[in-house]
């Protein structure tokens, strides 16, 4: 199997889907000739033609409005929002339109579109190039929300998202584009080629939406994470010496409640980790679900390790980032109780 970065894996997913399904189109700001500011669509226009992969004006709401219309026609648009921070102008088309179309039309019209958006911090992007707004979209009924943590999953999940008949918002942790990242920003960066999940089949395959993965089995505590935080959690578990199970959600909505419940019932202790700000983040929903489903198994309060309730600061990025040491502390607290 070839080694791929997450960028290459995402590129491969789109390449394959453009070839398999003549209704797939890839659109967004700078995605055409140039191949995207993160290079995820590199070479796709050249290979599949200017009518399948093309640049759009800088108008996120226009991109998603057009994508909804394309969906209604019968296409499967894959739209890139250049940074997740810039998805707000398109909120209405996503929330009021894409997510509601099937319901409000009694199933006659649907919007099987995929919105790709790089998210998360760790690249000195400051408050408008570092956000993780997934929590907002998990509140929107009719939308599926996905966030992969490695190239293998990224490709399989993106293919599933494109093939899914409902709108999917696909968040890509940009700090993982070129290599795994466990929060130790002062250590040398590693390439995906040295990571087992950097091995990615060249061909078509899917990873089903709605199914979590056990990133590390364990019995003493459960860590629920997704995206970059999976790597942070794994590092923290290793450093803590606690035999914790790490769940990589992969899909946030619909969330894999069975995997979560099975784990917490086993461990009785739970730490939830995300990079997004804490209040009303997806961690709140996870915490509520865990206590609803596993109340009588819980031996300690569920802990949330998250971004602080502030914008993502530029210079103090590493003070802000919920790194391994904060996860270790939380693990220690849940074990102590």
């Amino acid at each position, binding site marked *: 199997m070839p080694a791929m970065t997450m960028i290459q894996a995402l590129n491969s997913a789109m390449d394959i889907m453009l070839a398999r399904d003549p209704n797939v*189109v890839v659109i967004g700001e700078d995605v055409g000739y140039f191949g995207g500011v993160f290079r995820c669509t590199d070479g796709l226009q050249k290979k599949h033609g200017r*009518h*399948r992969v093309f640049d*759009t*004006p800088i*108008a996120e*709401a*226009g991109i998603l*409005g*057009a*994508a*909804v*219309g*394309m*969906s*209604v*026609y*019968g*296409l499967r*648009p894959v739209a890139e929002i250049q940074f997740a921070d810039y998805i707000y*102008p398109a909120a*209405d*088309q996503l929330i*009021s*339109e894409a997510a*509601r*179309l*099937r*319901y*409000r*039309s*009694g*199933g*006659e*019209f*649907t919007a099987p579109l995929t919105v790709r958006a790089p998210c998360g911090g760790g690249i000195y992007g400051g408050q408008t190039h570092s956000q993780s707004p997934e929590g907002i979209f998990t509140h929107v*009924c*009719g939308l*599926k929300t996905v966030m992969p943590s490695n190239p293998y999953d990224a490709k399989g999940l993106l293919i599933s998202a494109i093939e899914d*008949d*409902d709108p999917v918002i696909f968040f890509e942790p940009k700090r993982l584009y070129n290599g795994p990242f466990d929060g130790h920003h002062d250590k040398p960066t590693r390439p995906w080629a040295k990571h087992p999940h950097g091995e990615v089949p060249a061909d078509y395959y899917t990873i089903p939406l*709605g199914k979590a993965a056990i990133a590390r089995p364990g019995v003493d505590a459960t860590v629920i994470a997704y995206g970059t935080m999976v790597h942070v959690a794994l590092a923290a578990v290793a450093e803590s010496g606690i035999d914790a199970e790490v769940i990589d959600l992969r899909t946030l*909505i*619909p*969330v894999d*409640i069975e995997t979560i419940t099975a784990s917490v019932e086993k461990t009785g202790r739970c730490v939830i980790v995300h990079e997004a700000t804490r209040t009303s983040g997806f961690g709140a929903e996870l915490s509520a679900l865990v206590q609803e489903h596993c109340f009588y198994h819980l031996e300690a309060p569920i802990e949330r390790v998250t971004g602080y309730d502030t914008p993502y600061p530029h210079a103090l990025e590493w003070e802000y980032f919920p790194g391994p040491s904060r996860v270790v502390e939380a693990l220690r607290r849940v074990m102590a109780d």
Partner: protein
Amino acid sequence: MSNVRPLQPRAPQPRPYLHIPEPTARPGEPADFRTLAIPEAGRQPRPAIDASARELRPFAEDLIRVMDGEGHAVGPWNPEIDPETLRRGLRVMMLTQAYDKRMYRAQRQGKTSFYMKCTGEEAVAAAQAMALDRADMLFPTYRQQGLLIARDWPLVDMMNQVYSNTKDRLKGRQMPVFYSSAEAGFFSISGNLATQYSQAVGWAMAAAIKGDSRIAAAWIGEGATAEGDFHHALTFAAVYRAPVILNVVNNQWAISTFQGIAGGEATTFASRAIGFGIPGLRVDGNDFLAVYAVTKWASMRARAHHGPTLIELFTYRAAAHSTSDDPSKYRPAEEAQQWPLGDPIARLKQHLISLGQWSEERHVQLESELVEEVRAAGRQAESYGTLDKGPHHSAKTMFEDVFKDMPWNLRRQRQESGV
């Protein structure tokens, strides 16, 4: 009661110079249309469908009119429609009006929660639907019920939606008049204004990508043109030369605000198109022939790959905004009757009579036939239920269609709901 503070004396303020647009007349004042410049019918030239947007600029401030004061069709925009088609147009408009009247009454009788009429604007939907191909895709607002009627969509089906009854294809989910029909090529109406506009452009882009000859048409009220989606639609349509007709129905009012608040004081809405290099044509929206002709022209232009056209349909919202609205609070009571462009039904009727293709007697007869047709449909629809009395779709359906496949949380919620 905390923090009670003394009232601060107000410092004298310099005179404000923010311009706040005001309509020419308010309740209690006589309607005033003196500033409306209405050109004579037949005077507007008819350009080639491949004319450049630049050549077409004068049309954005003109007003394309075909029927003169006596109901004669004059000038180069005369679409020369055969009498049968004209009678069909008249019938569609009259049926729309009869339908509106009954459903309005049904709402007043408590059979449903809400209704919106298109009184005075019947020509827009009727003429435009007839000028388009049946396969073209329509992205309307809530005030183009006439599109469905022109496409011979069953009134009963429309009523089922308004009543949210057991035969409502939308399963009682949408507010009344938010119709949707894939089969009729009529896109699901959204409560959120303007969203359909860029969607129509996306649909048209898709058609162009596929080398399809079908085009899209979208409607928006003049008030809603202020939304960003209007801008996105024009931008995308211009950039990709999408085969789409972008209609702005300028009916002078957006609930309580006149078209000046939407930005129509200094210029026309058709002019918006100029800034994008899109032709903007302004048309007498109460002139069936003119609306038909302009729409046909724009559709031919789009189908011949010359790109989008914006049409401003200049008309007047003669009724209240909706059953929740009371226009006597914000505009002169008699404004509607004094609208200088008249009533679209009366005008087409006059035209047909002047052609010797219609008569007062036939008109009265058709009117009562249509009332009967609507009444019959109404009875049938009510037999499937009304909002107040039911029956409705079962509560189980509430959990369906959120996603194609129901996820666990909805399955569980359905179960907990006991349905």
